[in-house]
C-alpha cells in the first residue's frame, strides 16, 4: 500500500475497520493532519490520547480545541492509578532524571502499559509518525499488518514541510508549543525545544544523549538474568513482596 496517498489509506482504513479503527494522537502537527483528513472524509473512527499525568498544559488545551472544533469525543486514556502511586512512592515523582532504567520505568507505567491495554479495543490504529522524524523511524511502512492491531502510518513519507503546508491550507489547529520552538512533544519534564540543526526528537529525554549506552541487568542467585526495568516493574506490581537486593 506504499503507493496509496495519505487520504486513500485513511479512506481504506475507515471502510475496512469502521469503529474498530483508532487514531492515537498527542495533537502534534502530523496527528492533527491525520485527524483532519479522517474527519473530512467522514467515515467512522475513534480518537484516543494517552494522558500520562505529566503532560504540558498546552496538550490539554489541544484536547479541548479538538472537542470544540471537530465535535470529536477524544478518549483520554490514563495509567493505572495503583501502578503510578506505587512507582512514585518507591522512586519519587521525577525519577526519570536519575537513570535510564527509571526513565524507562516511568514511560512503561505512564504510557506503554496504558497504550497496550487500550489497543485491545481495536483492530487497527493510526498515528502521525513520519520517516524523517528520527533515524529509528526511517523504515516504517504505511501499513504494518504483521501484528495486531494493524498499525497504519498514513503520513510515513511526508516531510515536516508538507505537514505544515497541509495544516495551513486547511486551517487545522496547531499545538501551541510549536510556536515556541518545540519539534516533538511528550511529557512536560522530559521535553525541551530542539535546536534548528538537530533531529526533531532531539529535545526528548535530552539529558540521556551524552551518557554511555547500557542496559541494567540483575541476576538471581541461580544465575537467571532479568532486565533492570523488569525488576523495577515487578516491585511496582507486587509492592507487598519483600524488596530483595540484587548484589
Amino acid at each position: 500500500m506504499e503507493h496509496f496517498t495519505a487520504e486513500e489509506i485513511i479512506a481504506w482504513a475507515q471502510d475496512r475497520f469502521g469503529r474498530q479503527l483508532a487514531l492515537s494522537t498527542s495533537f502534534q502537527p502530523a496527528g492533527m493532519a491525520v485527524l483532519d483528513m479522517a474527519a473530512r472524509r467522514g467515515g467512522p473512527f475513534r480518537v484516543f490520547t494517552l494522558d500520562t499525568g505529566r503532560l504540558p498544559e498546552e496538550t490539554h488545551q489541544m484536547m479541548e480545541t479538538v472537542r470544540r472544533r471537530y465535535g470529536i469525543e477524544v478518549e483520554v486514556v490514563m495509567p493505572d492509578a495503583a501502578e503510578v502511586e506505587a512507582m512514585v512512592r518507591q522512586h519519587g515523582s521525577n525519577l526519570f532524571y536519575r537513570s535510564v532504567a527509571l526513565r524507562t520505568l516511568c514511560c512503561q507505567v505512564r504510557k506503554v502499559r496504558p497504550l497496550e491495554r487500550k489497543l485491545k479495543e481495536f483492530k487497527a490504529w493510526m498515528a502521525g509518525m513520519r520517516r524523517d522524524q528520527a533515524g529509528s523511524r526511517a523504515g516504517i511502512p504505511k501499513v504494518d499488518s504483521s501484528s495486531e492491531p494493524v498499525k497504519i502510518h498514513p503520513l510515513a513519507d511526508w516531510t515536516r514541510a508538507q505537514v505544515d503546508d497541509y495544516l495551513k491550507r486547511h486551517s487545522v489547529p496547531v499545538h501551541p508549543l510549536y510556536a515556541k520552538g518545540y519539534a516533538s512533544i511528550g511529557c512536560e519534564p522530559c521535553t525541551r525545544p530542539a535546536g534548528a540543526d538537530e533531529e526533531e526528537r532531539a529535545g526528548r529525554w535530552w539529558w540521556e544523549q551524552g551518557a554511555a549506552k547500557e542496559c541494567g541487568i540483575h541476576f538471581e542467585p541461580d544465575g537467571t538474568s532479568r532486565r533492570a526495568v523488569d525488576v523495577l516493574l515487578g516491585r511496582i506490581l507486587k509492592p507487598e513482596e519483600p524488596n530483595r537486593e540484587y548484589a
Partner: protein
Amino acid sequence: MAGSNTLTFSDAAFDNEVLNSDLPVLVDFWAEWCGPCRMMAPTIETVATEYAGRVKVGKLDVDANGQTAMRYNIRGIPTLLLFKNGRVVEQRVGAVGKSEVQKMLEAHV
C-alpha cells in the same frame, strides 16, 4: 560463525579459556535483547581481527551464563573486561567506540 575471529565463551569453559589463557583475553558481556550490545558487535569483531594472535577476543551471553556474570558483578551491559593471567586488568561499562577499546588493549599487549 564461519570466518569470525570473535570467540564464544561460556560458564563451563571460562576458567580454561579465559583465566588460564596465556594471551590476554577481552570478554564482551552481552545479551541479545540489549540494543547497545548489538551496536558494539561490529567493533568487537574488528578488534578481534586486528589483535588476532595478541589478544583473544570473545563474547559471553549473560542470559545463558549468569554464573560468570555474577562472579564479576556485572550490573550493566555491555561490559568489557580484559583478563591477564586470570585477573581483570581493564574494564568498561556501556557501549564504547573502537578507539576506546584499542586504548584498553594497547596498555597490555
